[in-house]
């Protein structure tokens, strides 16, 4: 019988990424980086990192299991 991919793996990755997104942009950490005198482009760097992680997981075939 065919070996199915792990049932919750994709969902787990999505959940972890969502939590990371919330941590970066909707948690006390957001207040910290807003007050830490970072360069003007710092929010874009965080945003870009999050996008890169999503891109890597999608390109590796995780997340979407259909």
């Amino acid at each position, binding site marked *: *019988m065919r070996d199915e991919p792990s049932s919750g793996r994709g*969902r787990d990755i999505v959940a972890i990424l969502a939590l990371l997104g919330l941590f970066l942009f909707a948690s006390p950490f957001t207040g910290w980086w807003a007050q830490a005198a970072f360069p003007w482009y710092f929010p874009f760097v965080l*945003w870009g990192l999050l996008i890169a992680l999503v891109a890597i997981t*999608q390109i590796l075939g995780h997340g979407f299991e259909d």
Partner: protein
Amino acid sequence: MKIELWQLLLTVVAYLGVLFLVAYAAERGLIGRRVLEHPLVYVLSLGVYATSWTYYGSVGLAAKSGYTFLTIYLGVTLAFLMAPILLNPILRLVREYQLTSLADLLAFRFRNPLTGFLVTVFMLIGILPYISLQIQAVVESIEVLTGDARTGILAPAFCVTLTVFAILFGARHITPREKHEGLVAAIAFESAVKLIALLAVGAFAVFGVFGGFGAMQGWLDANPEALDRLYRPVSEGPWVTLLLLAFCAAFLLPRQFHMIFVENLNAGALRHAAWMFPLFLLLLNLPIVPVLWAGNALQLGMSPDFYVLGITLDTENGLWLLTFIGGVSAASAMMIVTSLALASMALNHIILPIRFLSGDAQDNLYRWILWGKRALIAAIVAGGYGFFHVIDNNEGLVHLGLISFVAVAQLLPGVLALLLWRRANSAGFILGLLGGALVWFGVLITPLLINSDILTRDVDLTALFHQGATSIWTVATFWSLAANTCLLVLGSLLTRSGDEEREAAEACSERGLTPLRGQVTDGSPKQFEKQLARVIGPAAAEHEVGRALDELQMERSEQRPAELRLLRDRIERNLSGMLGPALAQMIVDNRLRLRERSHTALADSIRYMEERLKDSHSRMRGVVAELDNLRRYHRQVLYELPLGVCALGPASEIIIWNLAMQIISGIDERAAVGKSLHALPSPWFEFLEDFVRSTDTHRYKQTLQTGELQRSINLHKAEIDMPDIGQQAETGGQVIIVEDRSELETLETSLAHSERLASIGRLAAGVAHEIGNPLTGITSIAQNLRHETDTGGVRQSADDVLIQTDRINDIVRTLLTFSHAERIGAEAYQQTPLRHSIEEAVQLVGLSDAGNQIDWRIDCDAELTVEGDHQRLVQMFVNLLSNACDASAPGDPVEVACSHDMLHVTIRVIDKGSGVPEPLRERIFEPFFTTKSVGRGTGLGLPLVHGIVRDHHGDISVKSSSRGTEFVIRLPVPESLANVDTSAAGAA
């Protein structure tokens, strides 16, 4: 630089014309399907999210609230990040059930005529501020460029132009499904234009205004409060609220829902959009901060909302024109897609239900829908203009956009309940939506109306909710969503869902799998057409039934109950794509009625569930997936079982008709499954029906005449215990095993025949042996008598006796030869030249009078040999040539031709005689069968030839007609010859 109004208007029209050409090229196939379905095009088409608000308003919001402007895009990033669990299930539902808007989706799940109506009305009201924002942005951008505030005609002119183009893009002709390749291409083009324009403005801000990143950093060092103004609102402003609103807007705004789900040309593209669309938004936002600082540095005397345009005003390189076009792109894309999406919702949930409820059959439904949609597009754009005209907005572009964002956020509880909570029902959803909408109106719309002197300050409810320094957006979002969610939960818990709503909840759940209920009362597609024609008109009824039949690959003559049930389901889905799910369901329920209690429901259910399981397999996970694999394995075992299997339901409807059954009966699975046993063609119906009705559980060696073929069949049957699949019936039916033993019987007959032949051979050998001894005595006595007498008469008699004994001796020897008493072992075979054997046989046959008069022709290479026994080969040829000689007239030719290939030496013995009649041809190799007159043939010649050929590992066949007979003997090619051939081939 003086820019004239007419120049800008001309630019707008020319740009929209270019857009139309792009759309036209896509629709005409000039842009390849692969390009249109490319994930990049899909992602760019989602760029409709970035409107004038993003293009102009982001700088204004950045000036006012710093980095808070990023929440509008970070929220979208979070929504797309969760695409596999949030957007993908919605896409599946939209595609599977042909839903064309968010109102369709919610009306499909929350089965109540009010659901779609309320969602549509609320969206129409909620989105009007957003449309007016676009009009305001374009009008103000033109005022900035021309420096002329007397642009009263501008807004209506822009609205009329947009209406015309929206109709051209999305309502030029009726389409069975809401898929407009042209629209997707045009919106993607627009997104590319606005991205390029904004990046160009950003580059100009950094390099043109500041002179590079270093200089910009220098300006920043000199103005440290600029950076502080960006970062401070992150921790002080309504950051999380706006993040949540943008999360909702990402897929709930009508234009976003339309482009993400309805116009999706390639379902797989959503996977790429999960990161490519946030990347697009990031690139779009990178220039915002440099543009803001460039505007500040230049001390532009205008609202920061228009800094994007303002910093380019004095450029000589035409950047202002590109910037203006980018702004028009942003506004027009939003207005076109929004008006199309809202028009579709309004048509399906307001106009069409009213029209159909009035009871008029539509003579030309498609034409009516087309014109209805066009009128609605015009009305929606006009509504946006009306809002722009009446409402006095001095809060900036973003204010209007956020009002719409809070409105669409009211649909979030419903959508989450749709995906996650099966207990949720229409009562809860409607109550929640009304509650949320009321708070939204009270907190956000009322102040606008009061400011515009439409309402008095007596009705201002804001104070009830808005206290202290909390942002108005946080207050409005919190209270509206709290009221909405609480009412949804309470309403759902306090009321019960109907059957249809429970089925819809199952359909929306990935775990759901409900069998189709009931059987359609109408018995054919023709009757379907007749019934539907009363509501949607004859032409549309014929077209829709035809389309559903084509999609299901069914014939117009289809009458199987299970297939008709599937056809009804497909028609409902197709109508849903055109009229919305609520109306489609109403029409189908009223016109194509179901018999709830039906015995064939078992077959329907099993087949429907098998279809659903097949479709759903890719979505199964864990134990469910393993169980389905097991089911498929057992199903396949049953299908490929080398015994015919026919499973019957309680009402004798055929449920399983496996591969062996198809081969035995010659009846295809599609023609049998789902039909009653009575529908099987004769003689299978009578044959199986008789067995099903009998009390026998086994029947052996039953004869069945099918065409010219007579079959021998064993039958076995067993009762099936009713499986628990949600149906009520007394019995689960029967399973019949059909064992075709026709071939086995042929084999048995052949074996018996061989056994008889072997007995004859043994008998013949015994008889020959017993006759041999007395015959030797008779021959000796006759010879003695011949020598001892001088009497002529006696001598003559002795000679006659000797002739007759010779004849008996010949027969005895032949009998012994036939019984293989003289067989030589294959180990004694040697290379035998064929021509030599043939010539010797011709010489022997030519000794007779008849043989002497035959024209013998030998075409055989002297070098050609076979592995064999020379004497027996001569005997074979003598028998064949004697027969040929007997069949030929004097002077006729008899030809012996030899040839060979890699595997065989082929010998043909051809005569021009009278031939062997067709009925006798199969029997000529049987012993003692002869066509010659009594005394002339023993009937052992050709059986002897057959035996010799077989002993030489060859085969013999005969072709005969009235013009002659041809015996073809194939013997294995000797190894030496095969080697020669192989080496010759290798050399070649």
